[in-house]
C-alpha cells in the first residue's frame, strides 16, 4: 500500500544534541509537510516543500531545518533541541492540486531530556 513512513516512531535526545527525523513516501506526491503537535494541541505547520521549493512558516524557529533530497524523502533537523521542542512531529504529503487532502505519517514522538 502507498503510504507515508516516519522513522523513528520514538526518539529521545538530550538537551542541545542535534537530532534528525526522517519521512519517506511511496505516494509520489509533490508536496511534503512537517507539522509539530504538542500535547492536547492542534498540529502546527513548520514548513513545506513543493517539489524542491522550500516554504518556511514565519514563526518557525531557526532551530528547525529541513532537507528534501528527492521526491520520496524529507528530513527534519533540530539543531539544538530544547525542552520545549518535545512534541509529536508529523510528516504529511499531498498533490499540489489537492493540498487539502493530505496524507499523514504515524508521527515521531520526540522526548528531550
Amino acid at each position, binding site marked *: 500500500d502507498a503510504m*507515508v513512513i516516519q522513522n523513528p516512531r520514538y526518539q529521545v535526545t538530550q538537551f542541545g544534541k542535534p537530532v534528525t527525523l526522517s519521512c519517506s513516501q511511496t505516494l509520489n506526491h509533490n508536496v511534503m509537510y512537517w507539522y509539530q503537535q504538542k500535547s492536547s494541541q492542534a498540529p502546527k505547520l513548520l514548513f513545506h516543500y513543493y517539489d524542491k521549493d522550500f*516554504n518556511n512558516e514565519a514563526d518557525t524557529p531557526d532551530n528547525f531545518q529541513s532537507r528534501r533530497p528527492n521526491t520520496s524523502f524529507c528530513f527534519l533537523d533540530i539543531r539544538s533541541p530544547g525542552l520545549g521542542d518535545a512534541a509529536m512531529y*508529523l510528516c504529511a504529503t499531498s498533490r499540489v492540486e489537492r493540498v487539502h*487532502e*493530505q496524507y*499523514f505519517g504515524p*508521527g515521531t514522538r520526540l522526548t528531550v531530556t
Partner: protein
Amino acid sequence: LAKTTQPISMDSYEGQEVNITCSHNNIATNDYITWYQQFPSQGPRFIIQGYKTKVTNEVASLFIPADRKSSTLSLPRVSLSDTAVYYCLVGPVSGGSNYKLTFGKGTLLTVNP
C-alpha cells in the same frame, strides 16, 4: 484564511448519529471545507471535503448550507472506535507553493458504550 469555530468536545453513545457543526463566517468564494479525524498518537486522517450542498462517502456526510458560513459533519451510527478529535478546515483546494493548511482546536468526540 477563514477562521473556524467548533465545539471543544461532544459526547455520544454507540449507535447514535453524531453531528459536529463548524462555523466559518468569513469563508472565501474559492474556499473548500475539509474535515480530518485524529486518533490518539496517530496522524490526522482526511475524512471528507465539500464546497456546497451535501457530500457523502463511506465514512461520513458533509452538509453545507447555501450561505456556506457553516458546515456539519455527520457520522452515522458511531461506535467506540469513532472516539477521536475532528478538525474542520477551510481554504483553497490547490495552492501552489504558498499554500498552508491551518488546523483549529478541533472537537473531541467521545463515544460511550
